[in-house]
């Protein structure tokens, strides 16, 4: 037997019996979503129990690394499904051993899924990350804050004689003013988005330039108003802040069902 033959045999021996689950939707007929699944375009289809369905694709029983490629495949399926359905996203990498195990999930969690689907009906999520340019914010503070401007002028005028402590004090004042500015921006932005969103959630900021990492739950009917509001705010702050605005997403940050799952051996 050639090495190529034995490799082919090994590939065949790997059973493609598992189900990768992307999300849960309300749908009582079987549906196909095309060959867009994780792992080089697996066929995406539904497994139904009464009026609930899990959107799945066949997969070998493996652990998927959260690489950009894999995460994008997971998200792309959910985005596709989202065009037609309200959905409850499953966490990345959820694999069941068989269709029977997927049905067991739908049956045992039927009521909770139904409740959440009702609550999330016609809701979508937007992500908003805001980063600031430290130098520009410091410049704005030095321009607007009298005390800081005076102290800075003084240090500049008496460069030779100005003490270490005067510089220290300036540094402390600037730090405090920056924190105050960050809180003020974030509060103002939340305030402006309040009447066009149903809920919001702030996540931990990433890195030292980010001042806001938030998710907003928005009614589909408010999508355009939310969009326009974000654009207006980013114009208002364009000299100081960088906006990373993404979506619409499935309500990843607003669905909190504790699934009672255990490792299948």
């Amino acid at each position, binding site marked *: 037997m050639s090495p190529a033959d034995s490799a082919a045999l090994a590939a065949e021996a790997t059973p493609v019996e598992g189900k990768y689950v992307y999300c849960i939707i309300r749908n009582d007929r079987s549906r196909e979503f095309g060959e867009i699944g994780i792992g080089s375009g697996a066929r995406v289809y539904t497994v139904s129990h009464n009026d609930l369905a899990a959107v799945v694709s066949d997969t070998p029983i493996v652990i998927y690394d959260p690489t950009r490629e894999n995460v994008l495949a997971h998200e792309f399926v959910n985005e596709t499904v989202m065009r037609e359905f309200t959905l409850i996203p499953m966490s990345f990498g959820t694999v069941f051993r068989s269709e029977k195990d997927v049905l067991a999930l739908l049956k045992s969690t039927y009521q909770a899924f139904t409740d959440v689907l009702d609550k999330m009906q016609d809701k979508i999520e937007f992500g908003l990350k805001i980063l600031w340019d430290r130098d520009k914010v410091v410049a704005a503070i030095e321009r607007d804050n009298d005390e800081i401007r005076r102290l800075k002028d003084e240090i500049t005028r008496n460069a030779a004689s100005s003490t270490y402590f005067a510089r220290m004090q300036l540094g402390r004042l600037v730090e405090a003013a920056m924190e105050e500015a960050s809180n003020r921006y974030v509060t103002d932005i939340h305030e402006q988005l309040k009447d066009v969103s149903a809920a919001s959630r702030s996540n931990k900021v990433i890195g030292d330039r980010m001042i806001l990492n938030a998710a907003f739950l928005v009614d589909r009917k408010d999508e355009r108003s939310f969009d326009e509001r974000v654009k207006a705010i980013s114009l208002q702050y364009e000299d100081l802040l960088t906006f990373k605005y993404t979506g619409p997403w499935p309500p990843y940050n607003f669905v909190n069902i504790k699934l009672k799952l255990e*490792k299948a051996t």
Partner: protein
Amino acid sequence: MGLLTNILLSPFLGPIWGTKWTLDKVDRVVREELTDDTPIKEDLMALQLQLEMGEIDDDEYTRREAEIMQRLREVREWREKFGMSTSGGPVRVAEGDESP
């Protein structure tokens, strides 16, 4: 730092007891370090942000992502060795969910 301080500031422990205590402590600290994937996930998110902001290119991203995936796999292996829960991999509905 904390560990070293504890060892240095423990003059009352006899040699045998002291050694055992130290090993337990090392074991716990090392175990926490080996099984915590939070900093790795934060690194991954920071890397993603750098790509989105155009601060690194695709090649750089792919190279550093591979390193992070390797670290995640190592943590997962340690968690399995210690019998801790892991994310990813096959799951099923837990039985006897009404029990305390």
